[in-house]
């Protein structure tokens, strides 16, 4: 007992010392990093990743893809026009609070501070969108986040390209209409949306509702609470409703369970279509062969069959396909991470053309993003011909009107099974502008006048 008391006293001392020392050292690192002598020709890019926790299966491949492209640029080209990319990962377990902490920690690093941030989480995006204009760091939420932010007049600092949930929802309807032999045949059909019961999951509802009114199909909504490990009731309802089509808007374990449950009620997999965050390799793994035929949206191709992949394999992995596979090489989310990095580097390139080949500030990169014009030719130069459609960003439109593609699981791989489907801009864009206007009003934002921009 005496020992324990001694230990306890000792511990309290150690603890006090540790807290003080810890505090000081945290202070030291965070204050020092700003002034730390760093190579002056580095462009700093923070990487918010989640390789642990409940969403790690999605976070890992995405992070690996993003990382690999930056490494390739540095190793192969020595950076962008001589400006090396400095990047640092920050693990946040898909926890919004930790994500914001990561952002705060990294935003002032590098000679020019963080030049762009890709939160990889809708929750964190919502936190950062209002801060971006203050911190002067652009946010690129690629295919997630706040769809309304596609209106660049209200959200000058947020970019949603190449496409958004609302566009995707309208593209799904177009795809389904085509499968039914024409949009007019959708009348009288029933579509069920199984969605993650959160703002993310609710994103497509307005679009689908507007289209339901227009096209005459019935929309049934079935929310699934986080984390979504138990969906028996949901799928029983689907059995009862017997929908013609089911859209799956899930995330994490919810996807895996949904596919299992769909199989369990012998639901026709061909009639189940997942959002692009519900159709990666890890989502279909537990269901195995039962998931064959399942389709999902995307805005880029799956697989490792592009010239860029070859270069990565050779440059970074020395041609070792097995080692690359360990790093999710060619998986859907790997490719998505890759694409995100391609957009970033191209935006920096665009901005460098205006500001010179030096590390750029967030404001300068923002200009690069807003003036990004990624053409077919440029994509081919990058080794990505046909990987994703070209995209052009303007002051008003931060989404780029990106089309959506449908892929299908064959038990081994995801394969493209559709052409690029243009979203219904006539429906989606007005909704975006209305939502942005509401946001502007609530937050006392005066939309900028794009005709004044250069």
């Amino acid at each position, binding site marked *: 007992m005496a020992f324990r008391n001694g230990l306890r006293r000792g511990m309290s001392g150690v603890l006090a010392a540790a807290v003080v020392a810890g505090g000081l050292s945290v202070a030291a690192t965070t204050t020092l990093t700003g002034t730390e002598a760093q190579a002056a020709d580095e462009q700093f890019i923070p990487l918010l990743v989640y390789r*642990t926790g409940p969403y790690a299966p999605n976070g890992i491949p995405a992070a690996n893809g993003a990382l690999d492209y930056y490494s390739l640029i540095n190793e192969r080209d020595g950076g962008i026009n001589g400006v090396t990319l400095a990047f640092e990962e920050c693990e946040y377990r898909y926890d919004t609070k930790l994500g914001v902490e990561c952002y705060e920690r990294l935003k002032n690093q590098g000679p020019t501070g963080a030049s762009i941030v890709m939160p990889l989480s809708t929750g964190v995006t919502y936190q950062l969108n209002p801060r971006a204009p203050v911190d002067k760091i652009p946010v690129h939420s690629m295919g997630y986040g706040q769809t309304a932010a596609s209106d660049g007049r209200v959200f000058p600092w947020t970019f949603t390209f190449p496409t958004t949930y609302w566009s995707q929802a309208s593209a799904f309807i177009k795809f389904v209409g085509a499968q039914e032999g024409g949009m007019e045949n959708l009348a009288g059909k029933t579509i069920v949306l199984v969605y993650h019961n959160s703002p993310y999951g609710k994103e497509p509802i307005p679009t689908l509702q507007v289209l339901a009114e227009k096209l005459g199909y019935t929309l049934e909504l079935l929310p699934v609470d986080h984390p979504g490990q138990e969906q028996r009731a949901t799928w029983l309802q689907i059995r009862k409703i017997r929908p013609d089509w089911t859209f799956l808007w899930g995330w994490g374990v919810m996807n895996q369970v949904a596919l299992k449950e769909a199989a369990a009620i012998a639901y026709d997999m061909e009639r189940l279509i997942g959002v692009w965050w519900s159709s990666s390799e890890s989502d279909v793994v537990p269901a195995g062969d039962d998931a064959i035929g399942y389709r999902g949206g995307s805005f880029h191709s799956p697989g490792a069959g592009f010239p860029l992949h070859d270069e990565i394999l050779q440059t970074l992995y020395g041609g070792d396909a097995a080692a690359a596979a360990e790093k999710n090489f060619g998986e859907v989310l790997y490719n998505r991470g890759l694409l995100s990095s391609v957009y970033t580097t191209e935006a920096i390139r665009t901005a460098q053309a205006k500001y010179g080949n030096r590390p750029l500030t967030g404001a300068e990169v923002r200009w690069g993003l807003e003036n990004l014009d990624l053409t077919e030719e440029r994509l081919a130069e990058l080794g990505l011909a046909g990987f994703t459609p070209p995209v052009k960003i303007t002051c008003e439109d931060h989404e780029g009107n990106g089309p959506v593609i449908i892929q299908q699981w064959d038990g081994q791989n995801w394969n493209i099974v559709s052409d690029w489907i243009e979203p219904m801009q006539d429906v989606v864009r007005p909704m975006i502008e209305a939502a942005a206007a509401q946001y502007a009003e609530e937050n006392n934002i005066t939309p900028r006048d794009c005709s004044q921009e250069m």
Partner: protein
Amino acid sequence: MTVLTYITDLYNTFFATRSRAINTVFVTVISLLALFAVPTLANEYWLQAILIPFLIFALAALGLNLLTGFAGQLSLGTGGFMAVGAYSAFKMTTAWPELDIIAVFLISGFFAAGVGILFGLPSLRIKGFYLAVATLAAQFFLIWLFNRVPWFYNDNPSGTITAPPRTFAGVMITGPEAAAEVRYLVALVLLAVFVFFSWNLMRSRFGRAWMAVRDMDVAAEIVGIPLLRTKLLAFGVSSYLCGVAGALFVFLYLGSAETIAFDVNISFLVLFMIIVGGLGSITGSIIGAAFITILPIFLTNLNPILGIDLAVDLAKHIEVIIFGGLIIVILILEPHGMARLIQVSRERLRI
């Protein structure tokens, strides 16, 4: 000056070793530091990522500690009650933009108190872990409700609530433009005020009634303490503080939030804080909040400091393991929480 005297009193009770004069000086110095030095010295990262969440969690922990540590009612509904505060603050400030934002914070707590009292009703019959799980019903239901009913987030398509820019006495308090220093000071002052009130309350007949109910409710009834009213008051006061903390959580810290920001993890987190800090100790709530908010960040920053270059996922795993291990170690060394641990070490060091 009375505030100061009472902080000094609080200090005296815990570290009663030196003369009152020295303590007054000590507390004055701390208060001045907190008020003036910290905001000027700390950089934005410190304020935004560490100090502001710490102060807000300290307030929530104080609220839960009043209920669990003082009145003995184990609750896991903290996240839900915080959400009530946050959503009611959002509704009020968007409905009446001219309403003073500090008043909004203070009023939002009352909504949380009402809901807390409602969900406190079962406490008359249900005790201990059974009660804890029953309060989870509140947690899950409230989160579902705020997510389900678009009215709560003004039907906006994003389904989130965002802190609009609001001022107090001409100074921007909330919204993206509000300076971190200002938000820090608002949180600090509110916390100080509530600590001060709680301190007085705990030394009044109400505080005694709570502790009596906690220690032995049968005997409490026999000395004439009305059990239901006392427990419900505890739920009300506790939820009030949690509600205000919830409002601050969105308006001063996150800036915008969806319901997941208030999920059950928050409830557990705040419970950790008070157990690690010390049940039934106002100071313990603050120490616990400091420990639980700062420790993970400290661990995250440890590797770069020590110059160890670990993969981020490995570092996180180790961090999680150390965090879990430390909790067990602290409980073994001092089951009564860090407040007691610090008290012991101070007595030993005779500071």
